[in-house]
C-alpha cells in the first residue's frame, strides 16, 4: 500500500513466497470464472439469436427434456474440478496457518481503535507500527482488550480475528524491505476504518540496530513539532482526533490550544499545556462535554519528549485556523 508500483491489477504486491504462491490459485480461479462466464454468455447470446421464436416456429420442435449421460457428466466433472480446487486451497491454507518452529513471537494487542505491539525478545513496545526483520518467520500472538478486531495484512494475504480473553495466532515471513499496510478487518465500532497500522520490514542489520537503539536517540534527532506530527499518525491519535475542527470520537485539534472547553461535569477549563498533558496520560479525568469517555491512557506508552512533541504539534494547528 505504501509503495503501490508493484501492485498488480487485482492484487497488492505479494511480499512473501507463500503469498506469491497463493496468488497462483487465485488467478486460476479468477480466469476459470471468466472463462465459464464467457462461455455461458456466448451460449446465451447464440441461443437467443438462433432459436428466437417466429410465427412459423411457435413451439420448440425438440422437446428433449433429459439426457442422463449428459447430466451425469456435468455433475461429475464439476465435482472433480471443485475437489481439486478445494485440496489445492486447503494445502495453501495449512501453510499459511501453521507457523514454523523457529518463529519470532510478537504480541499484538488490539483495542478501540489502535494496535500495540510488544516484542518480548527485544523488550520493546510500539504503537501503530509492527517492526520486523526481513526473511524471518514471525508469529503474532494476538488478543483484544475490548471487542473483536481483525488483523489484516493484504501484502501477505493473511487475516485473523483478534478476540478478547483469548489468543489467536497468525504467522508470516516478510521477504521485502519497506512499509506495508495493516488494516482492522472486523467491524469494531465508530473508528473502525481509522484503526490502521504499518508493517515495517527492516534489513537484518537495521533491525538489530532498532532493537539496540533506545527510543530516546531516534526521537531526540527530530524537531518537536515534526515529531508530534509523526506521532499523531503512528500512535493512533488520528483515529479519533481530526487536525481541524470536525468532530470525531474525540475533539478536533484545530484551534484547540488555549481554547476554552466545557467539561462533562460543567466545569470550564482552558486547554493549556497542563490540560493537554493530563488528557494524554489520564484522559478519563477531564472529559469534554458531548464526547464519550473512551480514550485509552497513553501513560507508559509515550515518554516525556514525545508528549511535549504532541503538544507542540497541537500548537501548530492553531495557526492553520
Amino acid at each position: 500500500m505504501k509503495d503501490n508500483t508493484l501492485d498488480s491489477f487485482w492484487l497488492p504486491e505479494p511480499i512473501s513466497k507463500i503469498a506469491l504462491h497463493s496468488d497462483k490459485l487465485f488467478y486460476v480461479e479468477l480466469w476459470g470464472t471468466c472463462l465459464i462466464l464467457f462461455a455461458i454468455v456466448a451460449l446465451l447470446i447464440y441461443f437467443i439469436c438462433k432459436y428466437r421464436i417466429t410465427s412459423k416456429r411457435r413451439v420448440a420442435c425438440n422437446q428433449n427434456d433429459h439426457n442422463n449421460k449428459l447430466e451425469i457428466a456435468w455433475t461429475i466433472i464439476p465435482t472433480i474440478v471443485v475437489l481439486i480446487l478445494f485440496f489445492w486451497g486447503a494445502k495453501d491454507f495449512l501453510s499459511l496457518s501453521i507457523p514454523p518452529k523457529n518463529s519470532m513471537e510478537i504480541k499484538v494487542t488490539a483495542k478501540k481503535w489502535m494496535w500495540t505491539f510488544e516484542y518480548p525478545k527485544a523488550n520493546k513496545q510500539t504503537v501503530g507500527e509492527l517492526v520486523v526483520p526481513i526473511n524471518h518467520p514471525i508469529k503474532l500472538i494476538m488478543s483484544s482488550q475490548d471487542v473483536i478486531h481483525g488483523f489484516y495484512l493484504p501484502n501477505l494475504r493473511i487475516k485473523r480475528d483478534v478476540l478478547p480473553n483469548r489468543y489467536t495466532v497468525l504467522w508470516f515471513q516478510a521477504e521485502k524491505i519497506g512499509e506495508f499496510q495493516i488494516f482492522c478487518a472486523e467491524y469494531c465500532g465508530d473508528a473502525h476504518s481509522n484503526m490502521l497500522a504499518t508493517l515495517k520490514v527492516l534489513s537484518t542489520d537495521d533491525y538489530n540496530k532498532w532493537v539496540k537503539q533506545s527510543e530516546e536517540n531516534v526521537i531526540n534527532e527530530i524537531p518537536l513539532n515534526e515529531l508530534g506530527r509523526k506521532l499523531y499518525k503512528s500512535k493512533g491519535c488520528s483515529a479519533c482526533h481530526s487536525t481541524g475542527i470536525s468532530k470525531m470520537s474525540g475533539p478536533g485539534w484545530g484551534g484547540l490550544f488555549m481554547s476554552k472547553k466545557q467539561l462533562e461535569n460543567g466545569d470550564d477549563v482552558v486547554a493549556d499545556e497542563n490540560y493537554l498533558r493530563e488528557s494524554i496520560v489520564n484522559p478519563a479525568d477531564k472529559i469534554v462535554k458531548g464526547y464519550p469517555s473512551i480514550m485509552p491512557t497513553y501513560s507508559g506508552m509515550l515518554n516525556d519528549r514525545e508528549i511535549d512533541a504532541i503538544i507542540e504539534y497541537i500548537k501548530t494547528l492553531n495557526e492553520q485556523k
Partner: protein
Amino acid sequence: MKTEINYLNCSKGLKSWLFTHDHKRIAILYLIGIAISFLLGGVFAMAIRLELLTPDQLIVSSKVYNQLFTLHGAIMVLLVIIPAIPGIIGNFILPLMVGAKDVAFPKLNLWSWYFYMAGVLLSLYHLSTGAVDTGWTFYTPYSISTNTSVITVVTGAFLVGMSSILTGINFLATIHMMRIKEMGWFKMPLLLWAFYATAVIQIIATPVLGITLLLLVMERVAHIGIFDPALGGDPVLFQHFFWFYSHPAVYIMVLPAMGVISEIIPTFCRKKIFGYKFIAYSSIAIALISFLVWGHHLYVSGQSAFASMAFGLLTFIVAVPSGIKVFNWIATMYKGAIDLRSPFLYVLAFLVLFTIGGLTGIINGTLSLDLHLHDTYFIVSHFHYTMMGGVLIAFIAGLHYWWPKMFGKMYSERLARITCGLLFLGFNITFISQFILGTRGMPRRYHNYLPEFQSLHIISSIGAFIVGLAFFMMLYYLIDSLFRGKKAPNNPWGGTTLEWQASSPPVTENFDQTPEMRELYKYKSKDEL
C-alpha cells in the same frame, strides 16, 4: 361494460384488507410492506454510496455511516430478500398452482403478515431511539456494549423470523396435502418443489435465529454471559449460532428464486424444462446440505484449522447442485422457441449475474484465498451478485411474469425492457468495481478509506445511482400499469401451470371452474403469444 368481480374489488375498505383471509390479498399486503422496506433500504444504500465518493467524511459522521450500513443490510436481508418471493409470489400463486382455494391455514397466513409488519414497524421506530450500528450480523461483544437500540430492532427481527416460520409451515402443509388429485409429486411444477424445500429450511433454521436473538437480549438485560468474554463467555459461539441460521437463510432466499426461473424459462422457450427430476432432487439436496456449511463464515474467526477444512469441503460440495441448475436452464433454451419479452429478459440477467455470484463464491470458499478476501469488498460484491443479482432479479422476473395474473393489467413492455438493461448495466458497474476493491485489500464497513481506492469507489457509486434510477423507473411503469395498463388476458405468456386457468385477476375463490390438469410444461403452438 360490466366490471367482473374479482378478489380486488369484491369488498372495499381498509378493514376488508387488514382482516382478510384471502391469500391473494395477503400477498398484496406483503408487496406493500416489502416495497416500503426496499425503498428505505435503498435510500440507505444511496446515502452510503454518496458518502463513499470521497475518502474522508462527505455527508455523515462515522457513527451515522455505521448505522447506515447496518440498517441497509438488516432491512434488505430480513425485511426484503427473505420474505419477498415466499410472501408475495408464494402467497399469491402457490394455492392457484396446486389448484386449491387458499393455503392450508389462512388465518395463520394473516398472522404471518402481522408479525412481518410488526417487525417493520419496530425497525422504523427504533430509528428514533438510537439506530443500531453493529453491522447486520450483530457480533458480540460489540452488540452487547453498544448504546444503540439493539433490543428493539432484535425484537423486530425475532417477529419477522416468526413470520417466516409460519409461512414455511403453511406452504409445507399446502403443498403436501392440498394439490389436486392428478398432481402427483413428480407432476407438480418446479416452483412447488422449490417452496417445499424452502419451507423445510424455514422450519428448521429460523428458530435457531430466534433463540440466538433472544439470548442476545438476555445478554443485554441480564448479562447471562454466554457470549460475553468478560463474563467467561465465548463470542465465537454467537457467530456459530448466528450463521447456523444465516447460511441456510441464503437458501431460503435462493431456492424460491430458482423455482421462479424454472417456471419462466420453459414458458418463454416453449419447451419442457430440461432435467425436471434433477432440479427437483437438487432443491431438496441443497436444503439439507445447506445446514452443514455455516463455518465458512468463520474461517478467520479463530476456529480450528480442522473445522475450517471440514466446512470448506462441504461448501464446495453444496456449490455443485446450484451450479448445475444453470446448465439445466441453458439446456432448456437449446432448440427452444425463445420469446424475448421482459420476464425472460430479467431471467437472462439472472443467469449471468447469479453465475458470477456463484463462481465468486467458489473463490471465497477457497480456504487460502479467503484469508485475504474475508471482510473485504470482494465478499460484499459476491453477496450482492447472489442476493441482488440473483434473488432480487428473479423476484422481479416473477413479479413481471405474474403481474398480469395478480392485477389483470399489462405493464409497458418497452419501459420494462429499458429498465432491465439499465439495471443490468448499473449493477455490473457498481459491483465489478467492488470485486477489484476487495482483491486490492479494501476492507468492508469502512467509512474512511485510503485515497488510492477513490477512483473505484466513484465508479461504483455512479453504477449505484444508475441502479437507483432503474428502480424508480420500475416503480413508475408498474404503478402506471394499474391505472392505464391494457387489460390482461388469462394467459398472456402461454403458461401450462394451473394458475393460468384462473381469470386475471382471479375471483376470491380462485377458480371459476375446477382447474384441469394439463401436462406440465407441454406447450401447444396454438397457445396465445
